Protein backbone atom coordinates (compact mmCIF):
# COMPACT_ATOMS: atom_id res chain seq x y z
CA UNK A 1 0.00 0.00 0.00
CA UNK A 2 1.42 3.33 -1.10
CA UNK A 3 1.40 5.93 1.62
CA UNK A 4 2.55 8.81 -0.54
CA UNK A 5 -0.09 11.40 -1.37
CA UNK A 6 -1.69 10.59 -4.73
CA UNK A 7 -4.42 12.40 -6.69
CA UNK A 8 -6.63 9.73 -5.22
CA UNK A 9 -5.44 8.07 -2.07
CA UNK A 10 -7.00 4.65 -2.10
CA UNK A 11 -7.26 2.99 1.19
CA UNK A 12 -9.44 0.36 2.65
CA UNK A 13 -10.85 0.69 6.10
CA UNK A 14 -13.28 -1.64 7.70
CA UNK A 15 -15.37 0.08 10.27
CA UNK A 16 -17.40 -2.40 12.20
CA UNK A 17 -19.78 0.01 13.80
CA UNK A 18 -21.69 -2.86 15.29
CA UNK A 19 -19.02 -2.92 17.98
CA UNK A 20 -20.39 0.40 19.14
CA UNK A 21 -23.90 -0.92 19.34
CA UNK A 22 -23.43 -4.28 20.99
CA UNK A 23 -26.52 -3.71 23.08
CA UNK A 24 -28.75 -3.48 20.03
CA UNK A 25 -30.27 -6.86 19.28
CA UNK A 26 -31.08 -6.55 15.58
CA UNK A 27 -28.77 -7.09 12.62
CA UNK A 28 -26.95 -3.90 11.71
CA UNK A 29 -25.50 -2.69 8.51
CA UNK A 30 -21.72 -2.65 8.46
CA UNK A 31 -19.86 -0.13 6.36
CA UNK A 32 -16.77 -0.57 4.24
CA UNK A 33 -15.10 2.46 2.67
CA UNK A 34 -13.05 2.15 -0.49
CA UNK A 35 -11.33 5.19 -1.92
CA UNK A 36 -11.20 8.65 -0.44
CA UNK A 37 -11.08 12.27 -1.51
CA UNK A 38 -7.90 13.84 -2.81
CA UNK A 39 -7.43 16.52 -0.17
CA UNK A 40 -8.61 15.17 3.12
CA UNK A 41 -8.72 17.65 5.97
CA UNK A 42 -6.61 16.44 8.91
CA UNK A 43 -8.72 16.69 12.06
CA UNK A 44 -8.23 15.43 15.62
CA UNK A 45 -11.12 14.54 17.92
CA UNK A 46 -9.78 14.52 21.48
CA UNK A 47 -11.31 12.11 23.97
CA UNK A 48 -14.18 14.07 25.50
CA UNK A 49 -14.11 14.57 29.26
CA UNK A 50 -16.87 13.80 31.77
CA UNK A 51 -18.94 10.60 31.92
CA UNK A 52 -16.43 8.13 30.38
CA UNK A 53 -18.92 5.64 28.90
CA UNK A 54 -21.06 8.36 27.31
CA UNK A 55 -17.99 10.27 26.09
CA UNK A 56 -16.67 7.10 24.46
CA UNK A 57 -19.90 6.59 22.47
CA UNK A 58 -20.03 10.22 21.34
CA UNK A 59 -16.38 10.57 20.28
CA UNK A 60 -16.41 7.17 18.52
CA UNK A 61 -19.51 8.24 16.58
CA UNK A 62 -17.95 11.58 15.56
CA UNK A 63 -14.72 9.93 14.41
CA UNK A 64 -16.51 7.17 12.46
CA UNK A 65 -18.78 9.72 10.74
CA UNK A 66 -15.92 11.98 9.65
CA UNK A 67 -13.79 9.03 8.53
CA UNK A 68 -16.67 7.51 6.55
CA UNK A 69 -17.28 10.74 4.62
CA UNK A 70 -13.90 10.30 2.96
CA UNK A 71 -13.20 14.03 3.35
CA UNK A 72 -11.25 13.91 6.60
CA UNK A 73 -8.05 12.33 7.81
CA UNK A 74 -8.41 11.44 11.47
CA UNK A 75 -5.35 12.37 13.52
CA UNK A 76 -4.74 10.13 16.53
CA UNK A 77 -5.25 12.23 19.68
CA UNK A 78 -2.75 9.95 21.45
CA UNK A 79 -4.93 9.52 24.48
CA UNK A 80 -5.48 13.24 25.09
CA UNK A 81 -8.67 14.01 27.01
CA UNK A 82 -9.82 17.61 26.63
CA UNK A 83 -13.04 19.37 27.55
CA UNK A 84 -14.48 22.42 25.80
CA UNK A 85 -12.71 24.78 28.23
CA UNK A 86 -9.28 23.12 28.29
CA UNK A 87 -6.26 25.20 27.33
CA UNK A 88 -5.20 24.09 23.87
CA UNK A 89 -1.53 23.76 22.97
CA UNK A 90 -2.02 24.67 19.31
CA UNK A 91 1.61 24.13 18.38
CA UNK A 92 1.45 20.60 19.72
CA UNK A 93 -1.66 19.71 17.64
CA UNK A 94 -0.25 21.43 14.55
CA UNK A 95 2.88 19.35 15.07
CA UNK A 96 0.81 16.16 14.96
CA UNK A 97 -0.61 17.30 11.63
CA UNK A 98 -4.09 18.37 12.73
CA UNK A 99 -5.57 21.45 11.03
CA UNK A 100 -8.59 21.27 13.30
CA UNK A 101 -9.29 19.92 16.77
CA UNK A 102 -12.50 19.21 18.65
CA UNK A 103 -12.70 18.94 22.45
CA UNK A 104 -15.72 18.48 24.67
CA UNK A 105 -17.43 16.85 27.61
CA UNK A 106 -20.44 14.81 28.60
CA UNK A 107 -22.31 15.66 31.78
CA UNK A 108 -25.63 14.67 33.27
CA UNK A 109 -28.01 17.63 33.52
CA UNK A 110 -30.48 18.39 36.31
CA UNK A 111 -33.29 16.44 34.61
CA UNK A 112 -31.11 13.34 34.12
CA UNK A 113 -30.51 14.01 30.44
CA UNK A 114 -27.01 14.06 28.99
CA UNK A 115 -25.45 17.33 27.87
CA UNK A 116 -22.81 17.06 25.15
CA UNK A 117 -20.68 20.23 24.95
CA UNK A 118 -17.89 20.78 22.50
CA UNK A 119 -15.70 23.38 20.85
CA UNK A 120 -13.96 23.23 17.47
CA UNK A 121 -10.56 24.89 16.94
CA UNK A 122 -8.52 25.94 13.93
CA UNK A 123 -4.95 25.06 14.90
CA UNK A 124 -3.44 27.27 12.16
CA UNK A 125 -5.32 30.40 13.24
CA UNK A 126 -5.10 29.27 16.87
CA UNK A 127 -8.74 30.21 17.35
CA UNK A 128 -12.08 28.60 18.17
CA UNK A 129 -14.35 28.10 15.14
CA UNK A 130 -17.41 27.68 17.36
CA UNK A 131 -19.12 25.23 19.65
CA UNK A 132 -22.49 24.00 20.82
CA UNK A 133 -24.32 21.94 23.41
CA UNK A 134 -26.69 19.11 22.54
CA UNK A 135 -28.99 17.70 25.19
CA UNK A 136 -30.08 14.10 24.67
CA UNK A 137 -31.45 11.04 26.38
CA UNK A 138 -28.98 8.32 27.30
CA UNK A 139 -30.20 6.18 24.39
CA UNK A 140 -29.60 9.06 21.97
CA UNK A 141 -25.88 9.54 22.54
CA UNK A 142 -25.06 8.46 19.00
CA UNK A 143 -27.52 11.08 17.72
CA UNK A 144 -25.56 13.70 19.68
CA UNK A 145 -22.37 12.41 18.04
CA UNK A 146 -23.97 12.75 14.60
CA UNK A 147 -25.04 16.34 15.37
CA UNK A 148 -21.51 17.26 16.46
CA UNK A 149 -20.05 15.56 13.35
CA UNK A 150 -22.49 17.56 11.19
CA UNK A 151 -21.34 20.77 12.91
CA UNK A 152 -17.66 19.96 12.32
CA UNK A 153 -18.33 18.92 8.72
CA UNK A 154 -20.15 22.16 7.94
CA UNK A 155 -17.54 24.38 9.62
CA UNK A 156 -14.66 22.70 7.79
CA UNK A 157 -16.17 22.06 4.32
CA UNK A 158 -18.77 24.83 4.03
CA UNK A 159 -21.50 22.29 3.23
CA UNK A 160 -24.19 20.85 5.45
CA UNK A 161 -23.44 17.41 6.86
CA UNK A 162 -25.77 14.43 6.49
CA UNK A 163 -24.66 12.35 9.48
CA UNK A 164 -27.92 12.91 11.37
CA UNK A 165 -30.14 12.01 8.41
CA UNK A 166 -31.90 8.69 8.02
CA UNK A 167 -32.19 6.16 5.24
CA UNK A 168 -35.00 3.77 4.30
CA UNK A 169 -34.52 0.46 2.50
CA UNK A 170 -36.16 -2.92 2.02
CA UNK A 171 -34.69 -6.17 3.34
CA UNK A 172 -35.83 -9.44 1.81
CA UNK A 173 -35.18 -12.45 4.02
CA UNK A 174 -36.74 -15.69 2.87
CA UNK A 175 -40.25 -14.86 1.72
CA UNK A 176 -40.50 -11.84 4.01
CA UNK A 177 -40.06 -8.18 3.12
CA UNK A 178 -39.22 -5.56 5.76
CA UNK A 179 -39.23 -1.81 5.18
CA UNK A 180 -36.54 -0.46 7.52
CA UNK A 181 -35.42 2.95 8.69
CA UNK A 182 -31.86 3.44 9.93
CA UNK A 183 -29.39 6.24 10.67
CA UNK A 184 -27.33 7.26 7.64
CA UNK A 185 -24.48 5.07 8.98
CA UNK A 186 -26.76 2.01 8.96
CA UNK A 187 -27.08 1.88 12.76
CA UNK A 188 -30.25 1.83 14.84
CA UNK A 189 -32.38 0.03 12.24
CA UNK A 190 -36.10 -0.10 13.00
CA UNK A 191 -38.75 -1.92 10.97
CA UNK A 192 -41.64 0.23 9.77
CA UNK A 193 -43.49 -2.50 7.85
CA UNK A 194 -43.29 -6.28 7.53
CA UNK A 195 -45.06 -8.01 4.65
CA UNK A 196 -45.19 -11.35 2.87
CA UNK A 197 -45.47 -9.50 -0.43
CA UNK A 198 -42.90 -7.20 -2.07
CA UNK A 199 -42.43 -3.55 -1.05
CA UNK A 200 -40.71 -1.24 -3.54
CA UNK A 201 -40.00 2.42 -4.32
CA UNK A 202 -40.00 4.04 -0.85
CA UNK A 203 -39.65 7.85 -0.94
CA UNK A 204 -39.41 10.28 1.98
CA UNK A 205 -41.81 13.17 2.41
CA UNK A 206 -39.86 16.46 2.38
CA UNK A 207 -40.34 16.87 6.17
CA UNK A 208 -39.08 13.32 6.87
CA UNK A 209 -42.19 12.28 8.78
CA UNK A 210 -43.76 10.00 6.15
CA UNK A 211 -42.80 7.49 3.48
CA UNK A 212 -44.71 6.80 0.29
CA UNK A 213 -44.12 3.34 -1.22
CA UNK A 214 -45.60 0.60 -3.36
CA UNK A 215 -46.84 -2.55 -1.61
CA UNK A 216 -48.05 -5.73 -3.33
CA UNK A 217 -50.05 -6.97 -0.33
CA UNK A 218 -53.31 -6.74 -2.34
CA UNK A 219 -51.90 -9.00 -5.12
CA UNK A 220 -51.19 -5.88 -7.20
CA UNK A 221 -49.14 -2.70 -6.79
CA UNK A 222 -50.89 -0.11 -4.59
CA UNK A 223 -49.40 3.18 -3.32
CA UNK A 224 -49.46 3.93 0.42
CA UNK A 225 -48.37 6.88 2.55
CA UNK A 226 -47.05 5.71 5.92
CA UNK A 227 -46.58 8.03 8.93
CA UNK A 228 -43.46 6.76 10.69
CA UNK A 229 -44.20 7.96 14.23
CA UNK A 230 -47.76 6.58 14.41
CA UNK A 231 -47.46 3.68 11.97
CA UNK A 232 -50.66 4.92 10.34
CA UNK A 233 -51.01 3.98 6.67
CA UNK A 234 -53.19 5.53 4.01
CA UNK A 235 -53.91 4.22 0.51
CA UNK A 236 -53.10 7.06 -1.89
CA UNK A 237 -53.69 5.28 -5.20
CA UNK A 238 -55.50 1.97 -5.70
CA UNK A 239 -57.06 2.32 -9.13
CA UNK A 240 -57.87 -0.48 -11.52
CA UNK A 241 -54.56 -1.73 -12.91
CA UNK A 242 -51.15 -0.91 -11.41
CA UNK A 243 -50.27 1.99 -9.12
CA UNK A 244 -46.59 2.72 -8.67
CA UNK A 245 -43.50 5.00 -8.67
CA UNK A 246 -44.57 7.68 -6.14
CA UNK A 247 -42.55 10.92 -5.88
CA UNK A 248 -43.22 13.83 -3.49
CA UNK A 249 -43.47 17.40 -4.71
CA UNK A 250 -40.94 19.57 -2.82
CA UNK A 251 -43.75 21.26 -0.83
CA UNK A 252 -45.04 17.83 0.30
CA UNK A 253 -48.58 18.54 -0.93
CA UNK A 254 -48.62 16.33 -3.98
CA UNK A 255 -47.29 13.05 -5.29
CA UNK A 256 -46.45 12.28 -8.88
CA UNK A 257 -47.52 8.66 -9.46
CA UNK A 258 -47.75 6.13 -12.28
CA UNK A 259 -51.16 4.61 -13.00
CA UNK A 260 -52.26 2.17 -15.69
CA UNK A 261 -55.99 2.82 -15.17
CA UNK A 262 -56.39 4.43 -18.60
CA UNK A 263 -54.28 1.89 -20.48
CA UNK A 264 -50.50 2.24 -20.47
CA UNK A 265 -48.34 3.29 -17.54
CA UNK A 266 -48.75 7.06 -17.50
CA UNK A 267 -47.79 9.81 -15.04
CA UNK A 268 -50.43 11.54 -12.91
CA UNK A 269 -50.36 13.85 -9.92
CA UNK A 270 -52.48 13.32 -6.81
CA UNK A 271 -52.83 15.25 -3.57
CA UNK A 272 -51.03 13.58 -0.65
CA UNK A 273 -54.42 12.28 0.61
CA UNK A 274 -55.16 10.62 -2.73
CA UNK A 275 -57.66 13.21 -3.98
CA UNK A 276 -57.47 15.37 -7.12
CA UNK A 277 -56.02 12.96 -9.69
CA UNK A 278 -54.67 14.74 -12.77
CA UNK A 279 -53.07 13.16 -15.80
CA UNK A 280 -49.70 14.69 -16.73
CA UNK A 281 -48.47 12.61 -19.70
CA UNK A 282 -50.26 11.49 -22.88
CA UNK A 283 -48.15 8.94 -24.71
CA UNK A 284 -48.76 5.62 -26.43
CA UNK A 285 -45.83 4.01 -24.61
CA UNK A 286 -44.48 3.75 -21.08
CA UNK A 287 -43.99 6.87 -18.94
CA UNK A 288 -42.73 6.11 -15.44
CA UNK A 289 -40.28 6.96 -12.61
CA UNK A 290 -41.31 10.62 -12.18
CA UNK A 291 -39.17 12.87 -9.91
CA UNK A 292 -39.75 16.56 -9.23
CA UNK A 293 -36.84 18.92 -9.69
CA UNK A 294 -35.75 20.59 -6.43
CA UNK A 295 -37.53 23.84 -7.38
CA UNK A 296 -40.74 21.91 -8.09
CA UNK A 297 -40.97 23.42 -11.57
CA UNK A 298 -40.34 20.31 -13.62
CA UNK A 299 -40.56 16.53 -13.51
CA UNK A 300 -37.89 14.14 -14.78
CA UNK A 301 -39.15 10.74 -15.93
CA UNK A 302 -38.38 7.60 -17.94
CA UNK A 303 -40.18 6.98 -21.24
CA UNK A 304 -39.87 4.55 -24.15
CA UNK A 305 -41.60 7.01 -26.54
CA UNK A 306 -38.42 7.20 -28.64
CA UNK A 307 -38.11 3.42 -29.02
CA UNK A 308 -35.87 2.74 -26.01
CA UNK A 309 -36.12 3.79 -22.37
CA UNK A 310 -34.62 7.30 -22.01
CA UNK A 311 -34.87 10.16 -19.54
CA UNK A 312 -37.09 13.16 -20.31
CA UNK A 313 -38.12 16.33 -18.51
CA UNK A 314 -41.49 18.10 -18.57
CA UNK A 315 -43.26 20.91 -16.78
CA UNK A 316 -44.66 20.00 -13.35
CA UNK A 317 -48.21 20.20 -14.75
CA UNK A 318 -47.30 18.25 -17.89
CA UNK A 319 -46.32 19.46 -21.35
CA UNK A 320 -43.09 20.94 -22.74
CA UNK A 321 -41.38 17.52 -22.88
CA UNK A 322 -37.65 17.49 -23.62
CA UNK A 323 -35.33 14.53 -23.95
CA UNK A 324 -32.45 14.60 -21.44
CA UNK A 325 -30.42 11.39 -22.00
CA UNK A 326 -28.92 10.46 -25.36
CA UNK A 327 -25.98 8.09 -24.92
CA UNK A 328 -26.83 4.37 -24.90
CA UNK A 329 -30.07 2.45 -25.35
CA UNK A 330 -31.18 2.16 -21.71
CA UNK A 331 -31.19 5.14 -19.34
CA UNK A 332 -33.62 4.93 -16.42
CA UNK A 333 -34.39 5.99 -12.81
CA UNK A 334 -33.63 9.76 -13.02
CA UNK A 335 -32.98 11.48 -9.66
CA UNK A 336 -32.27 15.22 -9.67
CA UNK A 337 -30.02 16.49 -6.87
CA UNK A 338 -31.42 18.95 -4.36
CA UNK A 339 -28.89 21.63 -5.40
CA UNK A 340 -30.34 21.43 -8.92
CA UNK A 341 -26.95 20.86 -10.48
CA UNK A 342 -26.89 17.18 -11.32
CA UNK A 343 -28.98 14.19 -12.26
CA UNK A 344 -28.20 10.66 -11.09
CA UNK A 345 -29.55 7.77 -13.16
CA UNK A 346 -28.86 4.16 -14.16
CA UNK A 347 -27.39 3.46 -17.57
CA UNK A 348 -26.87 0.14 -19.32
CA UNK A 349 -23.45 -0.17 -20.95
CA UNK A 350 -22.35 -3.51 -22.45
CA UNK A 351 -25.12 -5.30 -20.58
CA UNK A 352 -24.07 -3.82 -17.20
CA UNK A 353 -26.35 -1.52 -15.24
CA UNK A 354 -24.26 1.29 -13.74
CA UNK A 355 -24.75 4.49 -11.79
CA UNK A 356 -24.16 7.64 -13.85
CA UNK A 357 -24.34 11.33 -12.98
CA UNK A 358 -25.07 14.07 -15.49
CA UNK A 359 -23.95 17.65 -14.94
CA UNK A 360 -27.16 19.42 -15.95
CA UNK A 361 -25.39 22.59 -17.14
CA UNK A 362 -22.83 20.90 -19.41
CA UNK A 363 -24.85 17.68 -20.08
CA UNK A 364 -21.60 15.80 -19.36
CA UNK A 365 -22.19 12.23 -18.16
CA UNK A 366 -19.83 10.39 -15.81
CA UNK A 367 -20.23 6.71 -14.93
CA UNK A 368 -19.42 6.34 -11.25
CA UNK A 369 -19.27 2.58 -10.63
CA UNK A 370 -17.83 -0.53 -12.22
CA UNK A 371 -20.64 -2.78 -11.01
CA UNK A 372 -23.19 -4.68 -13.10
CA UNK A 373 -26.51 -4.38 -11.30
CA UNK A 374 -26.90 -0.86 -9.86
CA UNK A 375 -30.47 0.23 -9.06
CA UNK A 376 -32.53 2.92 -7.36
CA UNK A 377 -30.14 5.87 -6.93
CA UNK A 378 -30.91 8.38 -4.18
CA UNK A 379 -29.03 11.62 -3.47
CA UNK A 380 -28.01 12.63 0.03
CA UNK A 381 -29.78 15.91 0.90
CA UNK A 382 -26.46 17.80 0.53
CA UNK A 383 -26.12 16.41 -3.03
CA UNK A 384 -22.61 15.11 -2.27
CA UNK A 385 -23.27 11.34 -2.16
CA UNK A 386 -25.57 8.98 -4.03
CA UNK A 387 -26.97 5.88 -2.34
CA UNK A 388 -27.65 2.90 -4.64
CA UNK A 389 -28.63 -0.73 -4.45
CA UNK A 390 -26.19 -3.07 -6.14
CA UNK A 391 -25.30 -6.74 -6.09
CA UNK A 392 -22.18 -8.41 -4.81
CA UNK A 393 -21.84 -12.19 -4.86
CA UNK A 394 -25.51 -12.59 -5.77
CA UNK A 395 -26.65 -10.63 -2.71
CA UNK A 396 -28.24 -7.21 -2.64
CA UNK A 397 -26.16 -4.57 -0.83
CA UNK A 398 -26.31 -0.79 -0.51
CA UNK A 399 -23.49 1.41 -1.65
CA UNK A 400 -22.90 5.15 -1.33
CA UNK A 401 -20.79 6.88 -3.96
CA UNK A 402 -19.65 10.49 -3.94
CA UNK A 403 -20.99 12.54 -6.87
CA UNK A 404 -17.43 12.75 -8.24
CA UNK A 405 -17.03 8.96 -7.96
CA UNK A 406 -13.98 9.17 -5.69
CA UNK A 407 -15.45 7.90 -2.44
CA UNK A 408 -17.32 4.63 -2.19
CA UNK A 409 -18.92 3.14 0.90
CA UNK A 410 -20.57 -0.24 1.05
CA UNK A 411 -23.34 -0.94 3.53
CA UNK A 412 -24.19 -4.60 3.93
CA UNK A 413 -26.48 -6.38 6.29
CA UNK A 414 -25.58 -9.75 7.75
CA UNK A 415 -28.74 -11.60 6.76
CA UNK A 416 -30.84 -11.06 3.67
CA UNK A 417 -30.96 -9.03 0.52
CA UNK A 418 -30.98 -5.23 0.88
CA UNK A 419 -32.57 -3.15 -1.84
CA UNK A 420 -34.60 -0.04 -2.68
CA UNK A 421 -32.67 2.56 -0.64
CA UNK A 422 -33.97 6.09 -0.14
CA UNK A 423 -31.93 8.81 1.57
CA UNK A 424 -34.08 10.99 3.80
CA UNK A 425 -34.10 14.80 4.09
CA UNK A 426 -32.04 16.92 6.51
CA UNK A 427 -32.89 16.38 10.17
CA UNK A 428 -35.38 19.07 11.17
Amino acid at each position, binding site marked *: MKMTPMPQIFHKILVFLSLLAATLAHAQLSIEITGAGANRIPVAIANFAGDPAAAQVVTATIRADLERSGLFKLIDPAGATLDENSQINFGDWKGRGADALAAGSLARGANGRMEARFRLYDTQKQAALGGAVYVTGNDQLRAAGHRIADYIYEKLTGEKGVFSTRIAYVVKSGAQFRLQIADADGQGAATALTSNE*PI*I*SPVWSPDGSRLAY*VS*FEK*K*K*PVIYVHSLASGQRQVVANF*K*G*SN*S*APAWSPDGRKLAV*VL*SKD*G*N*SQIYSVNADGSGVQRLTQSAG*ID*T*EPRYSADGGSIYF*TSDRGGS*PQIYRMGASGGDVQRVSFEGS*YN*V*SPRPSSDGKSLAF*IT*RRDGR*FQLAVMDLASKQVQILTDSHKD*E*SPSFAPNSRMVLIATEIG*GRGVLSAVSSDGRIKQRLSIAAGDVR*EPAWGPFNQ
Partner: protein
Amino acid sequence: MKKLLIPALLSALIVGCSSTPVDETSGAPVDSRGSGVAPVTAGGLDSRGLPRELTDPKSVLSQRSIYFDLDKYEVKDEYKDLVAAHAKYLVANKGFKVLIQGNTDERGSREYNLSLGQKRSDAVKRSLTLLGAAEAQVESVSLGEEKPKNPGHDEAAWAENRRADILYRAADGRGEF
Protein backbone atom coordinates in the same frame (compact mmCIF):
# COMPACT_ATOMS: atom_id res chain seq x y z
CA MET B 1 -54.53 -30.70 -6.89
CA LYS B 2 -54.18 -34.50 -6.69
CA LYS B 3 -55.40 -34.46 -3.11
CA LEU B 4 -58.55 -32.65 -4.12
CA LEU B 5 -59.40 -35.32 -6.66
CA ILE B 6 -59.43 -38.14 -4.13
CA PRO B 7 -62.68 -37.21 -2.33
CA ALA B 8 -64.36 -36.85 -5.70
CA LEU B 9 -63.30 -40.34 -6.75
CA LEU B 10 -64.34 -41.85 -3.41
CA SER B 11 -67.76 -40.27 -3.52
CA ALA B 12 -68.22 -41.59 -7.04
CA LEU B 13 -67.46 -45.08 -5.72
CA ILE B 14 -69.93 -44.65 -2.88
CA VAL B 15 -72.63 -43.51 -5.26
CA GLY B 16 -71.80 -46.58 -7.34
CA CYS B 17 -72.13 -48.88 -4.29
CA SER B 18 -75.54 -47.61 -3.28
CA SER B 19 -76.93 -48.30 -6.71
CA THR B 20 -75.84 -51.96 -6.76
CA PRO B 21 -77.88 -54.64 -4.93
CA VAL B 22 -76.65 -55.09 -1.37
CA ASP B 23 -76.43 -58.46 0.31
CA GLU B 24 -78.28 -57.78 3.61
CA THR B 25 -76.39 -60.58 5.34
CA SER B 26 -72.88 -59.40 4.56
CA GLY B 27 -71.84 -57.58 7.74
CA ALA B 28 -71.14 -53.85 8.04
CA PRO B 29 -73.80 -51.34 6.98
CA VAL B 30 -72.98 -49.43 3.81
CA ASP B 31 -73.21 -45.89 5.32
CA SER B 32 -70.27 -46.55 7.71
CA ARG B 33 -67.99 -46.73 4.68
CA GLY B 34 -68.78 -43.10 3.93
CA SER B 35 -67.42 -41.68 7.23
CA GLY B 36 -64.67 -39.08 6.87
CA VAL B 37 -65.43 -38.44 3.22
CA ALA B 38 -66.28 -34.88 2.23
CA PRO B 39 -69.46 -34.59 0.18
CA VAL B 40 -68.81 -33.23 -3.31
CA THR B 41 -71.37 -31.64 -5.58
CA ALA B 42 -71.36 -32.69 -9.21
CA GLY B 43 -69.11 -30.42 -11.28
CA GLY B 44 -67.62 -29.55 -7.89
CA LEU B 45 -65.64 -26.66 -6.45
CA ASP B 46 -62.03 -26.67 -5.42
CA SER B 47 -60.71 -25.48 -2.08
CA ARG B 48 -60.85 -21.84 -3.20
CA GLY B 49 -64.48 -22.14 -4.22
CA LEU B 50 -63.72 -22.21 -7.93
CA PRO B 51 -65.37 -24.66 -10.35
CA ARG B 52 -63.19 -27.66 -10.91
CA GLU B 53 -63.00 -27.03 -14.67
CA LEU B 54 -60.81 -24.02 -13.88
CA THR B 55 -58.35 -26.01 -11.81
CA ASP B 56 -58.55 -29.62 -13.01
CA PRO B 57 -55.20 -30.30 -14.73
CA LYS B 58 -57.14 -32.12 -17.48
CA SER B 59 -59.00 -28.92 -18.36
CA VAL B 60 -57.42 -26.39 -20.72
CA LEU B 61 -58.69 -23.68 -18.34
CA SER B 62 -56.22 -24.87 -15.69
CA GLN B 63 -53.46 -23.55 -17.94
CA ARG B 64 -53.06 -19.98 -16.75
CA SER B 65 -49.58 -18.86 -17.85
CA ILE B 66 -48.69 -17.14 -21.09
CA TYR B 67 -44.97 -16.76 -21.82
CA PHE B 68 -43.35 -13.93 -23.74
CA ASP B 69 -40.14 -13.45 -25.71
CA LEU B 70 -37.45 -11.01 -24.54
CA ASP B 71 -38.65 -7.41 -24.82
CA LYS B 72 -41.88 -8.66 -26.44
CA TYR B 73 -45.47 -8.05 -25.42
CA GLU B 74 -47.56 -9.78 -28.10
CA VAL B 75 -49.45 -12.95 -27.20
CA LYS B 76 -47.71 -15.61 -29.31
CA ASP B 77 -49.74 -17.83 -31.68
CA GLU B 78 -49.15 -20.90 -29.53
CA TYR B 79 -51.23 -19.27 -26.75
CA LYS B 80 -54.16 -18.16 -28.96
CA ASP B 81 -56.25 -21.29 -28.17
CA LEU B 82 -55.55 -20.94 -24.47
CA VAL B 83 -56.64 -17.30 -24.40
CA ALA B 84 -59.71 -18.14 -26.53
CA ALA B 85 -60.76 -20.83 -24.03
CA HIS B 86 -60.57 -18.33 -21.15
CA ALA B 87 -62.48 -15.72 -23.16
CA LYS B 88 -65.19 -18.30 -23.90
CA TYR B 89 -65.46 -19.15 -20.21
CA LEU B 90 -65.78 -15.47 -19.24
CA VAL B 91 -68.48 -14.91 -21.91
CA ALA B 92 -70.44 -17.90 -20.58
CA ASN B 93 -69.90 -16.97 -16.92
CA LYS B 94 -70.52 -13.25 -16.58
CA GLY B 95 -70.24 -13.38 -12.80
CA PHE B 96 -66.59 -14.42 -12.96
CA LYS B 97 -63.66 -12.02 -12.98
CA VAL B 98 -60.00 -12.47 -13.83
CA LEU B 99 -56.87 -10.68 -12.63
CA ILE B 100 -54.01 -10.84 -15.11
CA GLN B 101 -50.60 -10.40 -13.48
CA GLY B 102 -47.77 -9.44 -15.85
CA ASN B 103 -44.19 -10.36 -14.93
CA THR B 104 -40.68 -9.65 -16.23
CA ASP B 105 -37.20 -10.98 -15.70
CA GLU B 106 -34.93 -9.34 -13.12
CA ARG B 107 -32.77 -7.19 -15.40
CA GLY B 108 -33.12 -3.42 -15.24
CA SER B 109 -35.10 -0.89 -13.23
CA ARG B 110 -37.81 -2.28 -10.95
CA GLU B 111 -40.28 0.45 -11.82
CA TYR B 112 -39.58 0.26 -15.56
CA ASN B 113 -40.05 -3.51 -15.34
CA LEU B 114 -43.35 -2.91 -13.56
CA SER B 115 -44.49 -0.96 -16.63
CA LEU B 116 -43.19 -3.68 -18.98
CA GLY B 117 -45.14 -6.33 -17.05
CA GLN B 118 -48.18 -4.09 -17.40
CA LYS B 119 -47.75 -4.10 -21.20
CA ARG B 120 -47.84 -7.93 -21.11
CA SER B 121 -50.96 -8.16 -18.95
CA ASP B 122 -52.61 -5.44 -21.06
CA ALA B 123 -51.95 -7.54 -24.19
CA VAL B 124 -53.69 -10.56 -22.63
CA LYS B 125 -56.57 -8.36 -21.48
CA ARG B 126 -56.96 -6.94 -24.99
CA SER B 127 -57.16 -10.49 -26.44
CA LEU B 128 -59.79 -11.51 -23.89
CA THR B 129 -61.99 -8.47 -24.43
CA LEU B 130 -61.69 -8.71 -28.23
CA LEU B 131 -63.05 -12.24 -27.90
CA GLY B 132 -66.06 -11.06 -25.96
CA ALA B 133 -65.06 -10.86 -22.28
CA ALA B 134 -66.53 -7.74 -20.67
CA GLU B 135 -64.19 -4.88 -19.67
CA ALA B 136 -65.49 -5.12 -16.09
CA GLN B 137 -64.55 -8.82 -15.91
CA VAL B 138 -60.86 -8.29 -16.60
CA GLU B 139 -58.23 -6.35 -14.63
CA SER B 140 -54.64 -6.28 -15.85
CA VAL B 141 -51.89 -5.47 -13.34
CA SER B 142 -48.16 -5.94 -13.08
CA LEU B 143 -45.86 -7.55 -10.54
CA GLY B 144 -42.80 -6.45 -12.53
CA GLU B 145 -39.72 -8.42 -11.51
CA GLU B 146 -40.89 -8.81 -7.91
CA LYS B 147 -42.44 -12.30 -7.99
CA PRO B 148 -40.17 -14.53 -10.08
CA LYS B 149 -41.50 -18.04 -10.70
CA ASN B 150 -37.89 -19.19 -11.13
CA PRO B 151 -35.42 -17.51 -8.74
CA GLY B 152 -32.40 -18.32 -10.97
CA HIS B 153 -30.23 -15.80 -12.78
CA ASP B 154 -29.79 -17.44 -16.19
CA GLU B 155 -31.62 -17.35 -19.52
CA ALA B 156 -33.76 -20.39 -18.61
CA ALA B 157 -34.96 -18.70 -15.42
CA TRP B 158 -35.55 -15.37 -17.16
CA ALA B 159 -37.67 -17.07 -19.88
CA GLU B 160 -39.89 -18.59 -17.19
CA ASN B 161 -40.32 -15.20 -15.56
CA ARG B 162 -41.39 -13.30 -18.70
CA ARG B 163 -44.98 -14.28 -18.16
CA ALA B 164 -48.59 -13.29 -17.57
CA ASP B 165 -50.73 -15.33 -15.16
CA ILE B 166 -54.52 -15.46 -15.10
CA LEU B 167 -56.22 -15.60 -11.67
CA TYR B 168 -59.97 -16.26 -11.25
CA ARG B 169 -62.59 -15.01 -8.82
CA ALA B 170 -66.15 -16.33 -8.67
CA ALA B 171 -69.29 -14.19 -8.35
CA ASP B 172 -69.47 -14.94 -4.60
CA GLY B 173 -66.01 -13.38 -4.14
CA ARG B 174 -64.20 -16.66 -3.59
CA GLY B 175 -61.18 -17.45 -5.73
CA GLU B 176 -57.56 -16.73 -6.33
CA PHE B 177 -57.38 -12.97 -5.73
